[in-house]
């Protein structure tokens, strides 16, 4: 009969109306600025730079290799190399970025920079509250605003961060073991100065093999 | 008594002139609606409540809308500008109208009606009285009007129907 469906529908909406007052399961709204749903581990939006240790600028893992800058599809990354070098996590001297800017108004959150980074220096953040009153400067994030500690990385993506840390630790251990072996070999061949020089030249191939080792597990 | 009459007649007359002389047809129709509303106000001022409200309901609510719809249906939207008559015919038409008015005015002013007829206090005829009259003394005209309206409705629908149906439109839906 005509109107039957309307009556049923009205009963349904009335149930919703009354139910939303006493049934917490119906009212799923989270009132945002006060309450927040914790970000899911798989959430990603914009990249940030990971640093180790207390001093953000000293601890940056980035070596200013500019691979991310070249790979970035919308070209939102801008890097200038610093001439000063600083030691990286294995103690080797590396370049560091003098300027590292990401324009998040341009960034399209594709995560390609993270995929290509050989040093695990750039990772995806979950922070989405980037709104501000300055349309240009406010969304152009510089090195200082991008740098976030490794502990923060652990809080937002624990599984991934643990994996990265494990890999870096293994890398470091390998390099240290190698350095130790080299030192022993150097001690053994201490007599011959020419042999010691040859031992020092074997180090670069080890470093060169690192990118492949890093990139493969990140996929 | 004088001032409302002056305002209402001025308003009605100006809008009637505008309705007959404006270039844009839609403006003409809107001015017509204003004229009819002004006339309704004059009816109310004369104490004919029912006629005044019926005038608004029928003319402003229906006839004006009908005119507007006809204008939009026949003039493809915005090109509603009406062409003016050639000057000769304009002069002839206006001349005839002025002559008619002159005759009417002379008749009115020379007849016995012009001399001091004060307003008759007819009370305020209630809707009930009107209805009683319609159902007793005037029942035949009422029936005829009903018949006329039915015939007009049917006639308007038939005239406005598309002239011939295309076979595609008549085909049943699958």
């Amino acid at each position: 009969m005509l109107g039957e469906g309307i009556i049923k529908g009205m009963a349904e909406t009335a149930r919703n109306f009354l139910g939303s007052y006493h049934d917490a399961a119906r009212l799923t709204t989270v009132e945002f600025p006060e309450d927040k749903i914790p970000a899911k581990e798989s959430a990603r939006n914009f990249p940030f730079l990971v640093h180790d240790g207390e001093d953000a600028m000293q601890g940056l893992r980035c070596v200013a290799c500019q691979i991310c800058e070249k790979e970035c599809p919308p070209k939102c990354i801008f890097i200038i190399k610093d001439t000063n070098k600083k030691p990286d996590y294995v103690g080797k001297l590396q370049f560091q970025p003098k300027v590292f800017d990401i324009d998040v108004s341009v960034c399209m959150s594709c995560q390609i920079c993270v995929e290509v980074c050989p040093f695990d220096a750039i990772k995806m953040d979950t922070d989405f509250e980037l709104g501000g009153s300055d349309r240009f400067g406010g969304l152009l994030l510089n090195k200082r605003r991008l740098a976030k500690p490794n502990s923060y990385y652990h809080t937002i993506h624990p599984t991934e961060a643990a994996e990265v840390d494990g890999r870096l630790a293994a890398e470091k251990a390998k390099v240290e073991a190698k350095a130790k072996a080299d030192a022993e070999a150097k001690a053994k061949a201490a007599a011959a100065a020419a042999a010691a020089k040859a031992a020092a030249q074997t180090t670069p191939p080890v470093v060169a093999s690192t990118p492949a080792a890093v990139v493969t597990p990140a996929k | 008594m004088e001032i409302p009459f002056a305002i209402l007649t001025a308003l009605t007359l100006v809008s009637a002139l505008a309705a007959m002389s404006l270039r844009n047809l839609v403006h003409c129709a809107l001015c017509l609606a204003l004229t009819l509303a002004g006339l309704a106000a004059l009816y109310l001022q004369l104490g004919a409540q029912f006629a005044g409200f019926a005038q608004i309901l029928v003319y402003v609510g229906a006839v004006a809308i009908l005119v507007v719809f006809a204008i939009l249906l026949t003039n493809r939207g915005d090109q509603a500008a009406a062409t003016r008559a050639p000057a000769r015919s304009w002069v002839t038409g206006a001349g005839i109208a002025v002559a008619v008015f002159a005759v009417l005015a002379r008749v009115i002013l020379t007849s016995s009606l012009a001399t001091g007829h004060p307003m008759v206090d007819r009370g305020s005829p209630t809707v009930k009285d009107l209805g009683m009259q319609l159902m007793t003394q005037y029942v035949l005209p009422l029936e005829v009007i009903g018949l006329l309206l039915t015939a007009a409705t049917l006639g308007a629908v038939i005239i406005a129907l598309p002239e011939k149906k295309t076979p595609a439109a008549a085909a049943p839906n699958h």
Partner: protein
Amino acid sequence: MIADLLNGIGLLLWRVVSDQPDAKGALLPVLPAVLQPVVSAVLSVAPIIGVFASLFALTTLLERKGLGRIQNRLGPNRVGPFGILQPAADGLKMLTKEDIIPRSADKVVHFLAPVCLAVPTLLAFAVLPYGRNLVPLDLDAGLLFFFAVGASTELSIFMAGWSSRNKYSLLGAMRAIAQMISYEIPLIVSSVTVVMMTGTLSPMHIVEHQAGFIWGFIPHWYVLTPWGFAGFVIFTIASLAESNRSPFDLPEAESELIAGHLTEYSGFKYALFFLAEYLGMFAISGLGVTLFLGGWHAPLPGLEWIPSFVWFFGKLVSMVFLFIWIRGTVPRLRVDQLLNLAWKFLLPLALINLVVAAVWHFTAVWTFPGALVVRWLLGAALIGGPYVLLGSALSGAKKNTLRVYRYAT
């Protein structure tokens, strides 16, 4: 002098609250004779504008909250406690917005349209009886007045749509006019049943006819008779369409026409349209309350000590809530469905309802025991049968079959 004035105001308020006649008479004699007509007019007009404008503000908020709850949301709750200051924020936003007139618009008509809409809408409130002795204007042809001013709003909608020089505006306005004209007929015909039964067009007398109780507790409202109930349902459906409310909100169907005839309006003029729309809804709800729901009469004996306007506004707000509830439930109709509903269902049903009302009237002479129940059943059968038949003709004509796709699998 001041003391007299305060005394007069106090007496006026007391007379309003206690349902006594001649409330204005309490204040007017205190004033100088020159001021009396002015004050008398202001005393009639100002409360209507004040009460209904604040009801408008309240309704916009309650509507959004109610719709939110119907969809298991919270609704606006940011401005002030529980969001009660939301209407003020909306109003401020509307008033401070830029007033944009399209370059090719017909400027004069564009400006006049909202004014021509708001004025008749406000005029319609003049004839509604708000309480036992609260009728701003007791016209003998009050109902006709109401429908006449209601009909004159259509032209202003056309003005708004045409003058904007926008295809969406014009389409929206044309839809609005087609809809309003189509639904005006069932609206008036369903009201005519009440006029037939009471023999008057004055809303005040219509309400007075609904006084008293059957068997001591069932109020003598027309909605409780078979023809009155059918009339009320038809009236409600038609008034939903007249006030352009969902499911008949085709004129401003957001997903198809942006905002219909309101597309090119902004700022204060848009606010005026918005106000007129809600005021129209209140007016027509008020008329429904007057015609079918017993106006200001109390629903049970022994409740007459509550001021009569409380009952009127209670019923009015219930009607508005019903409108909101329907808006939250029923999706929008298509244009052909809308016109079919008006011409093939509501109009025949309203005409049959006239016959049912006549039967009810002529069987009033039956005096045998249980005559009322028999009359009621007879009336219900007379209107229920056509309802089922027309309803199945309207909805059952097209059987839903499995759709066959020619090219897709």
